[in-house]
């Protein structure tokens, strides 16, 4: 009975196994990025960047149809351009990161919509770019796995300056000049993971699998390693449970995954170890001593 519900779908159907593999790869790369975004108070930046990627991918689509490579490259170029320009402007002038990013992504979005309209087709941008986690073919799966690997490797290299910069940027500026490059590289990783996620879940839901696990982890751990582990684990659980949910009910897979993550998030708000609501109302004994 439990076997039929939870395991049989993955034994019987290859597309379910591939979807699970994609979900795991996305979780491994995206969740740590989400944690850093949250620590740097940039959670909404993910959403803004998703819009910045859209036009690039749309241009790729217009030039060569539903071609994975062209859309990925287009998305990466547009995302990198916006991320780097916004980062440079924020560091060189008084404008804050969020404001400069907002201007650049709006410009990028407007440009993309213009290009699509000039071309004259009425295919809805979002519709074209809505990925389908059930339709993982070999190239898509390889691209996703490759990007996740690159993300983890690069994250390992810039981990130290990134952590210090997230916690105490002034200190880092006094001891090292790695802060600027680390920040730009981090933004590049954000772009890679967003492009990754839109292959599988579509742009908006893809951001969800980055940000929600980070929010969940915040309620269960105070230190970074713990937070990242919990974020990755809860992202993988959401992916798995979402696929099972989509298999048993008729909910489309992308939304199902995000809904499961949302449920975990609500549970964490209520019962989380670290400043969850229940904890605050009924403090544990160790606080009385």
């Amino acid at each position, binding site marked *: 009975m439990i076997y039929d519900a939870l395991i049989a*779908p993955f034994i*019987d*159907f*290859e*597309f*379910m196994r*591939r*979807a699970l593999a994609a979900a795991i790869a996305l979780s491994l790369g995206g969740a740590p990025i989400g944690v850093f975004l949250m620590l740097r108070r940039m959670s909404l930046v993910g959403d803004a960047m998703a819009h910045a990627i859209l036009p690039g991918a749309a241009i790729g689509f217009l030039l060569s149809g*539903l071609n994975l490579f062209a859309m990925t490259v287009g998305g990466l170029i547009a995302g990198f351009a916006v991320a780097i320009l916004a980062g440079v402007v924020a560091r060189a002038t008084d404008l804050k990161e969020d404001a400069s990013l907002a201007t650049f992504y709006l410009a990028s979005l407007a440009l993309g919509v213009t290009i699509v*309209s000039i071309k*004259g*087709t*009425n*295919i*809805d941008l979002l*519709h074209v770019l*809505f990925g*389908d986690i*059930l*339709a*993982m*073919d070999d190239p*898509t799966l390889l691209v996703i796995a490759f990007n996740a690997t690159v993300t983890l490797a690069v994250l390992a290299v810039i981990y130290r300056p990134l952590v210090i910069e997230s916690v105490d940027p002034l200190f880092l500026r006094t001891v090292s000049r790695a802060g600027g490059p680390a920040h730009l590289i981090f933004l590049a990783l954000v772009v890679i993971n967003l492009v990754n996620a839109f292959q599988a879940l579509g742009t908006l839901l893809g951001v969800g699998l980055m940000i929600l696990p980070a929010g969940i982890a915040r309620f269960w751990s105070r230190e970074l390693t713990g937070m990242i582990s919990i974020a990755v684990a809860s992202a993988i659980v959401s992916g798995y449970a979402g*696929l099972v949910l*989509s*298999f*048993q*009910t*008729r*909910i*489309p*897979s*992308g*939304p*199902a995954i995000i809904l499961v993550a949302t449920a975990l998030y609500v549970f964490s708000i209520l019962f989380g170890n670290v400043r969850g609501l229940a904890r605050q109302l009924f403090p544990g004994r160790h606080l009385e001593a």
Partner: protein
Amino acid sequence: MRKPVVAHLLCLSLATLVTPAFAQDQPMQARLKVVASFSILGDFVKNVGGDRVELTTLVGSDGDVHVYSPTPNHAAKVTDAKLLVINGFGLEGWLPRLLQAAGSKATIVTATQGIAPLKVGSNTDPHAWQSVANAEKYVANIRDALAAADPMDADFFRKNAQSYLANLEALLGEVRQAVSRIPQQRRKVISTHDAFGYFAAAYGIQFIAPIGVSTESEASARDVAAIIRQVKTEHVPAVFLERVSDPRLMRRISAETGARIGGTLISDSLTDEKGDAPTYIDMVRHNIKTLASALAK
């Protein structure tokens, strides 16, 4: 929005100035302004109206009529139009907004009038043109509407419609003949979006679709699994890709079941001049040829 209205008023005032002098001498100069909602209707109007109508097609070739959003340019055309030819059956969900925005006084011609609708779940399936017999009714409706709007040219429209209807009748014969050559137990396919309900009902080829009636909805894992099971148990010989939907899903199903990928069926929009289906008749021929070759042994 300002400019088109002004232009419109200008035209009107010019017309009132000019008409008295020329009305008697040249009664047929003004061509009937017709707007068609998408390319297939545009093709019908072109065939009936010929050069006596000035046709604008809102969703042109290769566009997706389900998710169209109107542009100011199109709104201006709608404002000027005398006739607005639509499919009906809920296909043009964006129409009320457009009419309101354009302040149009055009007569709306519903081309599916008199056709018995098929249901998909609780929705009406709008793709009635996929049956050639229905297309003949479309053409008859368009002919009557054009004739009523422009009585001077009514005979011209009727003559055009008559010869076009004869072509459609011949086309219907071709389709029936092609279907009869496919063995009975092989007359079933999988297609990405259930645009072929009327086609299936008219010619007895079963279409199984992984996604709901509109291209906007996303498939659930349960739907995809159900299709894979069905393909395996019923030995469906071929799966079909449509131009507008995600082809990767189709390839996945094909890889998992061993069914043949049968080429591309055209459902919602014609192609441009260089494509496989610049006209309705070409589209039907293309589809039946593709189907017949995929389902043949």
